Every structure is written in C-alpha cells, then in structure tokens.
C-alpha cells in the first residue's frame, strides 16, 4: 500500500470525479473490507461532495476553470474516512480524528490496518524495555524512571524519531484513558495521555515548545507572586 500511495504523492485530481476514481483504485488494491449496507463501498462523487460539506475533506486549494483541484492530502483524507467508516466509527467521531491532520498523521491513520509487520518487533521491543528499566529501577524513588519507559512515553519517542518512510505504531492503539507522568527534570513532570501524538511538522513543534515554556514561566511567576 505504501508504494500505491507513493505514486499518488505528487498527483493532482481535477474535479471530484477524478478524486473518486483514484480513491476507488487505491481502495480496491488495499481491499478495505467495507460493510454491506448504508456505507457506500467506494466513495462516489455525491459522497465526496457530502464529505466536503461536512468538513471531512478540506476544501480544494486551487481551481481549474470551474473544477476544484484536489491533491494527495485530499486523497488521504478520503481514504482515512472510508477506513474509519469500515471500522464502524460514526461520522462525528471520524471528523474529530481527521480534523486538522497533516499528511503524515493521515498516513499513519491509514497504516493501522497493516500493523501486522510493524507490530512484530514492537511486542519484543516493548518487553525488552520493560526488562532494562526493571534492572535500572531497583530503588522506590525511581518510579518516574520506570514510567518513562512506559507505553505512552515510548510511542511518543518512537514517533519523534521515526523517519517518514517507516510509519511508527498506529497512534490510535494507545488507550485514550491512561495518563503517564514523566519526569523531565527535578521539579518538573509531564502528564501525557496514552494516545497523545506530538506534531510532526517543524513549525507545529516549535509552537508546542514555545507553549510549554510559556506555560512553565507564567505558572512559576504566579507561584512566586503568591509566595511573596
């Protein structure tokens, strides 16, 4: 499927019909098991217009005459929506998952179905980290160290270091309900939800770093004032 998508990376689709054709082609190749019934097997033009009106697909960024021109991101959005539908998620939920995602995130969401091979070493890798942290955490105060090696933190690290060619484990497999506390340095802990994914895009990451620093600074100023 990876190679299928690679071909599509630079492609442009003029008009809803072309986008529909391409999506149908890719869906056929991956063979997403779509349920029988209300969800249409491959997205037709009417479905795509509906997705556009619901905001599941971003509006086209350019026009050729009267026709909208769609690109790789639109194709990914469409594929992700169909995939999530085949996993019987309601439209509302799908919108939450797809909204504002960059191409990398969308690729990752799509990758979930082919987790078989990536999961293979993942299980072993995970257990190995459990053993190494266990060895290094004999003392009770090192609880935070152990939690560093815990799943949430691990997958975040994996996601940061993963190259674009190597999709990291599917993010939605992390449980949304579990939170991890990770010690950054003495006196500072990070509280992170199991399904949190750091942004991939450099600008977004700088924004995140700025936000974190600003929050720490304003909080510590407030505490100092309170102390005085």
């Amino acid at each position, binding site marked *: 499927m990876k190679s299928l998508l690679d071909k599509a990376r630079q492609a442009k689709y003029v008009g809803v019909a072309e986008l529909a054709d391409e999506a149908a082609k890719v869906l056929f190749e991956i*063979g*997403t*098991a779509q*349920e*029988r*019934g209300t969800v249409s097997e491959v997205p037709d033009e009417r479905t795509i217009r509906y997705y556009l009106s619901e905001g599941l697909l971003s509006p086209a960024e350019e026009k050729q005459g009267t026709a909208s021109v769609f690109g790789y991101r639109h194709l990914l959005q469409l594929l992700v929506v169909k995939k999530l539908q*085949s*996993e*019987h*998620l*309601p439209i509302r*939920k799908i919108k939450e998952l797809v909204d504002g995602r960059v191409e990398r995130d969308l690729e990752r969401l799509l990758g979930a*179905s*082919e987790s*078989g091979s990536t*999961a*293979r070493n*993942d*299980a*072993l890798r*995970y*257990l*190995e980290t*459990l*053993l190494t942290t*266990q060895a290094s955490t004999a003392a009770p105060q090192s609880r935070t160290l*152990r939690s560093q090696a*815990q*799943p949430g933190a691990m997958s975040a690290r994996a996601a940061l270091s993963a190259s674009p060619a190597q999709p990291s*484990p599917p993010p*939605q*497999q*992390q*449980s*949304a*309900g*579990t939170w991890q506390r990770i010690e950054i340095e003495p006196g500072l802990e990070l509280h992170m939800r199991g*399904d949190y994914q750091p942004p991939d895009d450099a600008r977004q990451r700088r924004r995140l770093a700025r936000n974190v620093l600003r929050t720490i600074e304003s909080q510590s100023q407030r505490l100092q004032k309170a102390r005085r």
Partner: protein
Amino acid sequence: MSQSIPKLEFLTERTRLVAGRDQTVSVLIRVIPPEVDARQAARPKLNLGMVLDRSGSMGGEKMEHARDAAAYCIDQLLQTDRLSLVIFDDQIEVLIPSQYAENKQGLKEQLAHIRARNSTALHEAWVRGGMQVSEHLTDGAINRVLLITDGQANVGLTNTDEIVTQAMELFKRGVSTSTIGIGSDFNEDLLLPMAQAAGGNAWHVRAAEDMQRIFTVELEGLIAQVAHSVTLGLVPSDGVRLSDVLNDFELSETGRYKLPDLQAGSPLDIVVQLRVPAQTTNSKRHLLDLRLGYTPQEAKSAEVIKQALELEFDSEESVSRLPVNHEVTKAVRLLMNARARREAMAHMDAGNYVLAQHVVGAALSATRVACAPMASAPDVQAEYESLASLGESLEDRSQDKMNRKRLAYESYARRQSKKV
C-alpha cells in the same frame, strides 16, 4: 470457514409486547459464532508461551497437577504449533525455548525437571514468557502467554496497576495473556484484570485436580477461536432508551461494548434492557439497531454485521396467551446473579460479611422463583449449588480468600459467557 459469519438472535420473554403502556423490555442478544470446519487443520495456529510458577507454595500435589496439565497441553498441540515454557520462583529459567511441538516426548521429559522452590518473581517471568512468544509472533496465529501461579508477586515489579497496564500494552502489540490462578493465595485483583486487559481468559483452579480441566477449556477455546476484537454497538431508535446492559461490558474508546473473542460452539449471551414508550395495538416498532464488529481469525480487517430489532405490540390479553421463552428469564437472572456476586464481594471488602451473605441468599431465592419452570436445567442446578455453597461458606472466616475468588471469577465467567 472464512465465508461463514456469526449469527445474531434477538429473544424476548414473549414474542410480542403489550400495547398501551410504557415498559422495560429485557432482550437476550445471542451471538452464535460460525462453526469451524471439523478438520483440525482449519484451526488457528498456536504460539503459546507457558509461564509456570514453581515457588515454594507450588510444592507437592499442585506441582504434580501442573506438570500433568502442561503435558496434556503438549499432547494437544499440532506440529505446526509453537510452545515455550518459562518456570519461575525468584529466579527465572527458560526451560523450553520457543519451538515447534515436534518432539512431544522430549518436551514432556523436560517437565520432570520442575521442582518447587523459593519466592515469586511473577512480573519478570511474564515478561520472559512474553518474549518467547514475541520472538516468533505469527500473523493469523494466536500468540498467547499462559501465566500459571498460586502466589502473589513478591519479587521485582509488584505494582498491580503497572503489571496490568503492561499486559494491555503487550496485547496491543499482538500477544495476549491468559492467567490461571490456583488455590486461594494468589492475587485475583492482579490476575483477573491482567487477563481482561490482555485479551485473554482468567481462570481460577479451586482444587489442584481441576487443573487439567481448566487447561483443556483454555486450549479448546484457543483452537475453536473464530474471531477476535469483537465489539457491539447498540443504538436505540428515537423514543426508546437503552437502560442497561446486564453483562457490564467495558466500553471501547469509540463507545462500543468490548465482547470476548468468538469461539465456535460457544454462543455469547448478552442481555440489554430497553425502556419502550407506549405503542398502539397491532403496531410494529423498530426498537434497536445493533452492529457487531469482529475480525475473523484469519483475516486482517474488521467486519460488521448489522441487525435491527423490531417488535409487534398487541393487547395484554393476546400477549398473555403467548408462550414464555424461559431462556430469556434465565439469562436475565444469571446475569443479575453475576452482579450480586460483585456486590457481595464489595461487602466483604468493607468487612460486612452479614450483608455479603444476605446478597447471595437473596440472589438464590430470586433464582429459585424466576427459574422454577426450568429448575432441572444443568446450568440452573449448577447456579443453585454454587450460590447455596457460597452462602454457607460465607459464614466461615477461614474461607474468605477463597470465597472472594469464587465471587470474582464466577461473576466474570458469567458476564463473558464462559463455561467452565
């Protein structure tokens, strides 16, 4: 077998509902897994990692039975199945590294070396067993660790929540864990949640001689597994309210109920209660939409079955002439008793043994009334006996640990439609 799909049945006490009044209707949803091909070759491959406690308390009869059960397990494997065995006390030893079950005699001879020893490094042993399975993680196979212990984790990581979380994380990476607790001294608050979080089964072996039977149930379940990642979505139609799901299933992140794996020959009984507004006589109403999501054993992607529940409404007089489906009454009662067991457990934990006993006694009386028309059915008989003996045994403070385990495991087995 890839073509066969599970069937769904909706059953209500009577086939029609009384018109003209608001009412609560219990609906038994029976999920009937497809039958597997009788040829053994059709069963999923197994990649098993047994992790066996040989701490001091496992000595004598228990260890003997554990060895027998493991030997039995080896006998049942096909040459294409993998098996490993990790034994542990405070030391961990990979007695049988993961290998195909080709030389069964040789494998069984290894078991003779197991002798009971020191304390219990449960967590690390589980990790080691998991590694044996993970190294040979096989797509389409059941990759499972089978943790067998009679004791409390007291060496290494012992924090229950952390171990449960780790077991869940390993499951997300393709390896499930079943747990078998033996006797009355293990920690059910670890082993039960651990198996549940890790996509496996939790079993309680009350007496050592039951060990082989439990092994058989676990192994036959694996062999008969036809689908995993089973979820249930329930959407009541307008005006109808879903007031209860008696199985108390956990919810998935997307708001679906998480169901146990589907095994051929073992239907799942689910009871939901619907609050239905008054309808006119001779009308028909759509009450509920149901979506069963599952992944067939040898497939990679999820499939969905959708079905709608529609019922007809009639006058009270004609409804009362319809025959009663006792299966529904029974299913409701048995699941209510599962709740009663958990309630009794909570009372025990609060030190209120009288109340615990009262709850169990009340459940027994209610069952005798509700299930009177089918009192001779074996599962009803078994339930009478279980509740009666629990009620008696709750008098005896020396039985507290065992009773708490019985309450926990019996409740769990019922909610998950597991038959031991």
